[in-house]
């Protein structure tokens, strides 16, 4: 697969070159070696980077170890050209006694960007920043060029700065632009974690290069001349450096698992790496064994309404009880809940709650097909209204004849999409709901296990906690929900940490640990929520009570988001009081008023951006910027950062808040329908500046799945 795609992209690149130079030749037919992960956990040779990229949406996990150093990495090809890597390194004995156990626990981010594609004669070029926000151990920049020169053989050469300019270096060639490029400023004590703009491409530079050879389909052999002299490790006496040559052999088992062995540092140090690589666009299977839907029933088989009921001329009226019951039973079989069914002379409108299907189009498609089994033949138009937390969101109107016509059509999903009428549920003409008798109050409870994994802590690679969780809620009328959740810890080591908060700001997040330590029985929330539609395109939420683990108070939010608009605007105002460490009903004497104005934009090419500007928990003012790559199968990989009026040195380690988020849908792993997923946020460090209140059920994420463009992106599942 990997080889195919690379071959295809090389061919495309060749095609572009042909346009430019009007030549054609054999070079474009060369088979490029696979682009594999280096021991630095990003596309590379042994330790050095390459200019080529992995296939789009490829994700790779790696663990490597040598002598006193281990690196755990997560690398993601965020777009065709852009790759990002998160690396957690442990350098044993690196710090002597400077820190508590002498080990350096280092979290670093890399980004790489391929700015020129490989052509027939022209190599691919890429520029990269290594460890551009971390503590600076791996801080470096590079420009690399790679070219496939024979079947399975690729040459790479490049120039590096910082750590990658530490072996056999020379004066910075950029010095002719400005003499300030000639020296690389040192790091201030507290500035670690800041984006080191003033260091990039400064100081001495050095050259590196290497060869990758795809010896067989499974085996790749690499040799490189490294420009990294491991100066800091040698100084700390944890690495024996003899020279710039590194060699490695990498074996791919064909199921994404790879095993590599390397000799680093000119023959002194043996290293091994285990890696796993997969593509987010391709579920690992077993694919999609969801139960079959009901087929569209023949109109001739549709039951007539019993006598004694006729549609009111005045407008839609609730359907007869027997019909509502039959409809509710068929929808229940699909995992959908019917809350209203009204009939007019020739049309039916149903309000459904979808707790099962991540692709909303599938819920609509299944509901529509089920209804053809119970609606009288005279009903020719079916309107399905989706709901979120009791709020009607999107109305989809389908002609029954189109359903009958397109169910077995080759391009049936597109055909039905092009004829469906999609509008806001509050639009004029959409029949309002009349609750099915017995829909309210609606109770729900759940007893289960919970798990909190915390990865890459400052002094422990993995911390975690597991326990029992009891949640319960009641919706007393549409949109009015009372709910709470209790957790009892069974086991875990999150509270073992002995790092006292050392922040100059109010300890709004740095004392999270005290909450874990104070109690094993936690009330994680207890709230009253009200969700409502103030008008067309507008959504509202009001929440009061114990909002999250650390804060109680009240929160109000308004969202403007038309059903077919990529743009959303939000406003949220909160009042938060810090809860007691025992997570009971008590409060501490820290309170703050905060709030945000938010802009959401779906770029409709797989990227969603969000900016929140306002006041944060520590009373600081600023803005959070985030950009997510979202896949139509539910995967989300994104990055964010927050800048506030807290000066970098007062913020402490990291200088400002930033991190990456990864969300994995359960459906992708199991093949069964579920709206649940695993999510995690990786931050280099959690501090008190730029901290947001963690209120549940923010409106944008509640409603956007039911709206365009998400709704249309998942429309392929309409007939599933």
């Amino acid at each position, binding site marked *: 697969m990997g080889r195919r795609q690379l071959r295809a992209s090389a061919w495309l690149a060749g095609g572009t070159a042909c346009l430019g130079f009007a030549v054609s030749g054999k070079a474009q037919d060369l088979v490029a070696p696979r682009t594999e992960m280096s021991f630095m956990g990003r596309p590379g040779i042994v330790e050095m980077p390459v200019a080529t990229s992995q296939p789009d949406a490829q994700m790779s996990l790696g663990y490597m170890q040598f002598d006193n150093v281990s690196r755990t990495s997560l690398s993601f090809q965020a777009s065709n050209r852009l790759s990002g890597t998160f690396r957690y390194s442990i350098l044993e004995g690196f710090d002597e006694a400077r820190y508590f156990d002498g080990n350096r626990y280092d979290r670093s981010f890399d980004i790489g960007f391929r700015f020129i594609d490989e052509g027939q004669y022209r190599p691919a070029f890429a520029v990269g920043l290594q460890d551009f926000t971390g503590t600076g151990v791996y801080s470096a920049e590079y420009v690399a060029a790679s070219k496939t020169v024979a079947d399975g053989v690729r040459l790479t050469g490049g120039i590096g700065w910082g750590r990658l300019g530490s072996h056999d270096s020379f004066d910075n060639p950029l010095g002719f632009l400005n003499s300030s490029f000639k020296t690389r400023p040192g790091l201030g004590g507290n500035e670690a974690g800041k984006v080191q703009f003033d260091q990039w491409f400064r100081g001495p530079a050095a050259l590196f290069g290497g060869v990758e050879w795809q010896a067989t389909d499974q085996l790749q052999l690499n040799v490189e001349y490294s420009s990294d002299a491991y100066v800091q490790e040698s100084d700390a006496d944890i690495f024996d450096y003899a020279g710039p040559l590194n060699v490695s052999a990498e074996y791919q088992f064909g199921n994404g698992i790879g095993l590599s062995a390397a000799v680093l540092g000119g023959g002194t140090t043996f290293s091994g790496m285990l890696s796993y690589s997969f593509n987010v666009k*391709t579920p690992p299977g077993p*694919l999609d*064994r969801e*139960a079959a839907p009901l087929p569209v029933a*023949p109109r001739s088989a549709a039951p007539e309404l019993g006598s004694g009921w006729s549609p009111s001329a005045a407008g839609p009226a609730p359907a007869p009880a027997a019909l509502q019951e039959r409809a509710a*039973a068929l929808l229940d079989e699909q995992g959908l809940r019917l809350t209203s069914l009204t009939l007019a002379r020739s049309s039916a409108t149903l309000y459904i709650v979808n707790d099962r299907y991540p692709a909303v189009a599938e819920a609509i498609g299944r509901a529509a097909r089920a209804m053809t089994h119970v609606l009288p033949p005279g009903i020719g138009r079916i309107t399905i209204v989706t709901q979120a937390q009791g709020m009607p969101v999107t109305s989809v109107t389908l002609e029954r004849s189109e359903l009958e016509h397109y169910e*077995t059509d080759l391009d049936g999903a597109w055909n039905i999409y092009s004829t469906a009428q999609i509008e806001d549920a509050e639009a004029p003409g959409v029949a309002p709901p009349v609750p099915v008798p017995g829909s309210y109050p609606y109770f729900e409870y759940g007893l289960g296990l919970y798990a909190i994994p915390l990865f890459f802590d400052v002094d422990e690679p993995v911390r975690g906690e597991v326990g029992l969780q009891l949640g319960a809620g009641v919706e007393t009328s549409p949109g009015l929900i009372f709910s709470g959740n209790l957790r009892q810890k069974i086991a875990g080591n999150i509270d073992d940490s002995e790092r006292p908060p050392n922040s100059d700001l109010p300890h709004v997040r740095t004392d999270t640990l005290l909450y874990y330590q104070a109690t094993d029985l936690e009330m994680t929330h207890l709230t009253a929520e009200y969700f409502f539609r103030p008008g067309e395109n507008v959504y509202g939420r009001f929440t009061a009570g114990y909002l999250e683990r650390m804060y109680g108070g009240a929160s109000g939010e308004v969202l403007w988001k038309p059903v077919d608009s990529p743009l959303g605007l939000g406003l949220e105002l909160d009042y938060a009081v810090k809860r007691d460490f025992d997570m009971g009903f008590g409060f501490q004497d820290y309170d703050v008023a905060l709030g945000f104005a938010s802009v959401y934009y779906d770029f409709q090419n797989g990227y969603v951006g969000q900016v929140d500007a306002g006041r944060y928990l520590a009373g600081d003012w600023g803005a959070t910027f985030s950009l997510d790559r979202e896949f*139509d199968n539910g995967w989300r990989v994104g990055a964010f950062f927050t800048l506030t009026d807290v000066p970098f040195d007062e913020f402490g380690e990291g200088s400002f808040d930033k991190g990456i988020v990864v969300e994995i849908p359960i459906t992708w792993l199991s093949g069964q329908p579920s709206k649940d997923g695993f999510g995690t946020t990786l931050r280099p460090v959690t501090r008190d500046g730029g901290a947001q209140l963690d209120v549940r059920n923010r409106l944008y994420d509640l409603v956007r799945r039911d709206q365009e463009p998400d709704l249309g992106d998942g429309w*392929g599942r309409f*007939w599933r």
Partner: protein
Amino acid sequence: MIRFAALAPVAGVLLLGACSLPDPVSSIFSGRDSGQSPSERRYEQLSRAGVPSVLAGVENEEGRFAAFLKLQERNGIGTWVSPDNVSLSLWNGFLVATRGLGGDIMSADVGEVQAAILFGFPGYYPRFQSYLDGENQTVIRSFVCKVSSRGTRQVDLGPFTATTRLMEEDCKSSDQSFVNLYWVDEGTGEVRQSRQWASPLLGPIALRQIPR
């Protein structure tokens, strides 16, 4: 001869099915009425009503077969269901959709090959099938299929033996190829038995009428 060897597994699935489930419908449901899912209840009702049934199996997965009962027919296309809520859509015996097997055919356009096979016109015909990819996007694949006859075959359906013409449909696309086989009754024109390729993930499906 080589082709015939490739056929052996189909016969295996069909024979195994026929032997171990002489009356598949009633043996599955003897003495069970409570705790049924809606799909099981519907299956049992269909079984009592004596609707037509067909035995179908995924050839590459041993033991993955069931008796499917005809739930309904609309515009000539029948929907056949299993007790565990898998469905097959058949148009005159031609598989045009599956649901719940994993790697399902979402839809298929088999109009020309069907006419050629049922009426015995050898030649080259187009076939189209659609799937969902890993990102839920519809993917339509097109094939060119060579239809030919392999001659007369007897098919033992239990209560009687049908005289059939074995039709072969040899399909190719740029990167996929498969061979479908249809045993077409010389008297009634029905497809008594078939082996039809579903998808790259699923491979071929073996189908056989269960006479009642």
